[in-house]
């Protein structure tokens, strides 16, 4: 979706302001939100693509004015409501007042913690041969999916070069909508700064994205 989360190239957000000796969490509730998202994901309530999509679908003014973990909280609530794991009545009461739904992997317990600390595997067996190889010129398609996609707006319609092939990975565009993993080839595609930003761009910059095969066409 063409949401405010897709920020590459936007103006007006000001300087980057690193915080010296930044703590891991600024408020304790942030750590609880992080842990709840990890736990409910590991228990099978949703996948990582759905959790990203629900944060992206927050209204733009909410997205832009909420702290990072506040966005995580709002996205988690909306996702659990939509999937039927919690109900509005529970939220209103501040307690569970409705029946629970079964979780794919069951209750998340202390024994499951080490599992969430190891990164998930997203590589999958290739369903077809790769259409592109390193060195190929490709154009990022001018597409505007209304749902989740990992093709940023700033590359759409622009020509780049395939640099690496990462094998086949879970396709976020379908996985986010319960439409299956539908594994796709994934490539690093490099764009010249002037191709993306015009003749006034700094000529020394090159920008790459990791692009799933359906995002690309030969150029």
């Amino acid at each position, binding site marked *: 979706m063409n949401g405010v989360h*897709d*920020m*590459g*190239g936007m*103006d007006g*957000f*000001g300087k*980057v*302001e*690193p*915080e010296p000796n*930044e703590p*891991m969490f600024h408020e304790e*509730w942030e*750590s*609880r939100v992080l*842990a*709840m998202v990890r*736990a409910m994901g590991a228990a099978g*309530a949703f996948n990582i693509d759905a959790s*990203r999509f629900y*944060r992206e679908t927050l209204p733009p003014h909410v997205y*832009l004015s909420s702290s*990072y973990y*506040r966005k995580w*909280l709002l996205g988690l*609530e909306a996702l659990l409501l939509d999937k039927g*794991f*919690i109900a509005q009545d*529970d*939220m209103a009461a*501040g*307690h*569970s007042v409705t029946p*629970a739904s079964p979780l794919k992997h069951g*209750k*998340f*317990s*202390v024994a499951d*913690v080490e599992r969430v*600390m*190891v*990164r*998930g*595997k*997203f590589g999958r067996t290739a369903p077809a041969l790769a259409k592109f190889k390193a060195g190929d010129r490709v154009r990022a398609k001018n597409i505007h999916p209304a749902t989740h996609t*990992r093709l*940023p707006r700033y590359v759409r319609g622009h020509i780049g070069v395939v640099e*690496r092939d*990462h094998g086949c990975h879970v396709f976020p565009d379908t996985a986010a909508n319960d439409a299956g993993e539908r594994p796709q080839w*994934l490539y*690093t595609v490099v764009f010249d700064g002037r191709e*993306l930003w015009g003749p006034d*761009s700094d000529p*020394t*910059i*090159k*920008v790459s*994205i*990791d692009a799933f095969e359906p995002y690309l066409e030969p150029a």
Partner: protein
Amino acid sequence: MSEHDHDHHHHDHDHSELSETELRVRALESILSEKGYLEPAALDAIVQAYETKIGPHNGAQVVAKAWTDPAFKKALLEDASKAVGTLGHVSRVGDHLVAVENTPGRHNMVVCTLCSCYPWEMLGLPPVWYKAAPYRSRAVRDPRGVLTDFGVSLPKETEIRVWDSTAETRFLVLPMRPEGTEGWSEQQLAELVTRDSMIGTGFPRKPGAPS
């Protein structure tokens, strides 16, 4: 104690002191716990694991080893997941780590314009600036300007390669080894490797510089 209180250190305030967000977080945790979806103690354990097991010390060890062991460096650049997987203490890295090398002619910088993708297992949880709009919007268009915000400048002819983390691949910058460190041990070198030098928004410390 009310029925949704748990015996945890985070529940030791009176509710009247809590913000709207804190109340929502507590309510959600109560709901999830009461429905039997998760054990609150498991949340404590997750937080503790993030606070103690991951962090830039992991990435720094990888970088220091690459600086001292040419065979490891070659393996790291070919397949970072596999190479890092041979170091038992940082084995959580998963399958999709890519190491990218800074050279005198090319500087690498990592961003996630769409959200906040970051190599947690190597660098810990990302800092606020990495997840915020100024960095995400400008890194791909004006990386030199962003580096200026960090007090960092590069020769004007140096190529800047920005890696936008748009998939589950995760990027670790292998910075250049500082001069004046000949003969240093891996442990000594690791002390010079900063988090930002592995994101590409900084350089390693110089020998003798304060940490």
